[in-house]
């Protein structure tokens, strides 16, 4: 087990280094393109030379990369141009905001979609199954950019029940979280519920479930003790992948509700050509992707005894 974990950590670190190299090659290899990004396409040669000199861009590329990597690892992620503060502090603030959004998103999504999926998959083709399936299709076909407008018109403009933006100007407010969470849950519910349903329906047709039924075990016990454990492996993978999706997928929702999270930070950084902030955001995204992957792998081992890692 320790060896397995150790290998995963090494693998994580290696992935990060490769990702950072790709990022560096994309963004920083050509100093000329960096200075054009920062100073704009119509800056003059003198200004560019001065800036490159001041920021150490006359060093060879490998030295600049190592220097950048060491600084990054030490927590110095450069300075955000548009916010005029260290990138690391703004990234953490925004990331924690998105984490709050993500927490409530999963807190509603997981019980709702798993319950619906299991209920539908237990008796394939039943009226309950068809009703839930119809709901799922409707929800999955409503993309966030459409549902944001829809829920706004309904709850903000027509009924006046909920605040229309979620910028948390006066500090944290649960009321302001309702609409963003609603939009995200509506979008994802159908997808996760359908996966759970399919997985559950599969399990229900396996011989060991049939055996359990024929042995005369109570139906509820067959479902909870025997079927669920296997049926939940697929939805679990999907949900773990959704952490990654959430990081990028919330851009629309954060933008529309003016929620100051990580998604809108990525957008601000790319629109504002804030290179160092964008690099920091990208690296954080990679970290999260690799991290969730590792967690998923470990959890897999517990869920499915057939998977054993050497």
């Amino acid at each position, binding site marked *: 087990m320790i060896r397995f974990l150790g290998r995963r950590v090494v693998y994580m670190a290696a992935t990060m280094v490769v990702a950072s190299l790709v990022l560096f090659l994309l963004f920083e290899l050509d100093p000329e393109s960096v200075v054009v990004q920062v100073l*704009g*396409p*119509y800056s*003059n*040669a003198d200004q560019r030379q001065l800036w490159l000199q001041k920021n150490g861009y006359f060093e060879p590329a490998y030295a600049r990369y190592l220097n950048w990597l060491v600084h990054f690892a030490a927590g110095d992620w450069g300075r955000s141009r*548009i*916010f*005029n503060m260290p990138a690391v502090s703004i990234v953490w603030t925004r990331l924690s905001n998105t984490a709050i959004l993500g927490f409530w998103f999963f807190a509603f999504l997981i019980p709702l979609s798993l319950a619906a999926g299991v209920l539908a998959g237990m008796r394939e083709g039943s009226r309950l199954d068809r009703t839930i399936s119809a709901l799922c299709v409707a929800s999955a076909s409503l993309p966030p950019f459409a549902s*944001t*407008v829809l829920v*706004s018109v309904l709850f*903000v*403009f027509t009924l*006046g029940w*909920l*605040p*229309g*933006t979620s*910028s948390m*100007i006066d500090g944290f407010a649960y009321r302001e979280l309702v609409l963003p969470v609603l939009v995200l849950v509506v979008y994802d519910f159908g997808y996760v519920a359908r996966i759970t349903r399919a997985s559950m329906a599969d399990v229900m047709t396996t011989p060991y479930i049939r055996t359990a039924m024929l042995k005369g075990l109570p139906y509820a016990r067959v479902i909870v003790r025997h079927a669920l454990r296997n049926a939940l492996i697929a939805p679990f993978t999907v949900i773990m992948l959704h952490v990654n999706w959430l990081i990028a997928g919330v851009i629309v929702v954060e*933008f*529309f*509700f*003016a929620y*100051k999270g990580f998604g*809108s930070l990525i957008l*601000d950084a790319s*629109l*504002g*050509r804030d290179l160092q902030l964008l690099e920091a955001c990208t690296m954080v995204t990679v970290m999260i992707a690799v991290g969730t992957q590792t967690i998923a792998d470990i959890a897999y081992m517990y869920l499915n005894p057939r998977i054993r890692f050497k």
Partner: protein
Amino acid sequence: MTETKQHPYLPKLVDQLETGRIDRREFLRTATLLGLSAGAAYAIAGGIDPLPALAQAAMPKGGRLRIAMRVHEIKDPHTITWVEASNLIRQCYDYLTRTGHDNITRPYLLEKWAASEDLKTWTLSLRKDVKWRNGQPLVADQVIWNIKRTVDPAVGSSILGLMKSGLLQEFDTGQVDANGKKKMSTRLWDSKAIEKVDDYTVRLNCQAAQLSVPENLFHYPFYMLHPDENGAFKVGVQGTGAFELVEYEVNRKAVLRARKDYWGGAPHIDTLEFIDLGNETAPIVAALASKQVDGLYEVDFAQLDAIKAMPHVTIYPATTAQTGVARGKYDQKPFNDVRVRQALKLATDPQKVIDVVFRGVGDAAEHHHVAPIHPEYAKLPMVKRDVAKAKQLLAEAGYADGLDVEIAAKNQPAWEAAAVTVMAEQWKEAGFRVKLNVMPANSYWDIWTKVPFGFTSWTHRPLGVMTYSLAYRTGVAWNEASYSNPEFDKLLTEAEGALDVEKRRAIMAKLEKIMQDDGPIIQPLWRQIQTAYDKRVKGFRMHPTQYIFAETLAIEA
């Protein structure tokens, strides 16, 4: 007429008003510029100065006012190019003068001003009761430091363009640029150009007659900053303004606290907040609907119907000289050819642009950037759309097979990209193959003076000559088209000093004609703008430049 030393031209002006040779608006403007108080000028013209009446109205006290507006990074208040940024800075710093929503300029940090008969010498008398936050009085040395700083080419303020004909001269730096051209710069024309008379009096000694000095002093970056801070803008800055900056988070919010000891009387509200909801208009309107903000910087035309449906909101419209111009670089191919510039103008149908973009609300423009509401406006014939002639001009210029151009525009406010799209379609009929390059507003403002072909929005100014000296005088910071026409420059300097309205209008007619025939801009329209505030907000008047004066605002509990 209670002024002790009145300007010799004033009686003539009164005579012109009485015989109907100038209208009331023109009288008010010129009389106040010559140093007559706004109250006295309104009395002669048969009216009451609206500003004091407004200030005396009973207002609710206290409370917090929240306005939705972009909160940008501000590097230096003297070099800003965004009106939004000016609205934030304006609450902390004051101007020497203030042009009201009625387009009349009144003294502000000044107690009064006086112009010499030849309009070359302007004596500015400071109020003696103005205090910085640290308790120091505002004195002449600080004002002189500010004026000198803004006309220093190294600072890069747009104010330089306004003051150039009066205070500055060009000189050869002795260096050459990359193209081998001599590098020119500017400096004060005389060591006494900006003169300290005593601790509370500053004198501007201009080399040429200048009428618009008081209006220029209200150009939006022209704040009186504290010299010790050298142009820094951050929490805790010294200012003479009605508010103190206590929180400033770029792209999120700025919080300002009222100064109880403000020299102009404590503001009605306790706290003012500017809340940044991003570039998208949907959250801004949603925030107003759910009362998360009390007012907006601007209402986008596309959102007007949604806002009209809100019972708790008042919409404030204003007719303005706000506009947007498509301009090609005057010194770069293909726009250095007058036939190409004319072809673009002839291919444009302004009314169509207004119909599509603003549903017919707005006025068609004549491609010369002087608005019908400017006092010195001279009516010129409209440039009629003539696609055949445009094609012919393009062919004569050597582009018989059409011409590829790329125009840069910004995505916010939404009307700008829409207007460019409509014009691009019109230009295509004349043989221009137009590529649109729509970018975020902050990216555009980084390159707006450099891009070969771009669409730039211009805010309202009380005078046409102000726009001309900011945007089309040779070599000034905001001359985005690099326009350079010696005859235009000469006439402009003349117009800036012409006191007689009819004479000024005659010069303006020539200037406008030069712009129409030779100028670098394609200008489709004049905008009508509007904003919206919660009905609980009192004292709001829409300023044609969208300036916010928060000390005049109050909010009911």
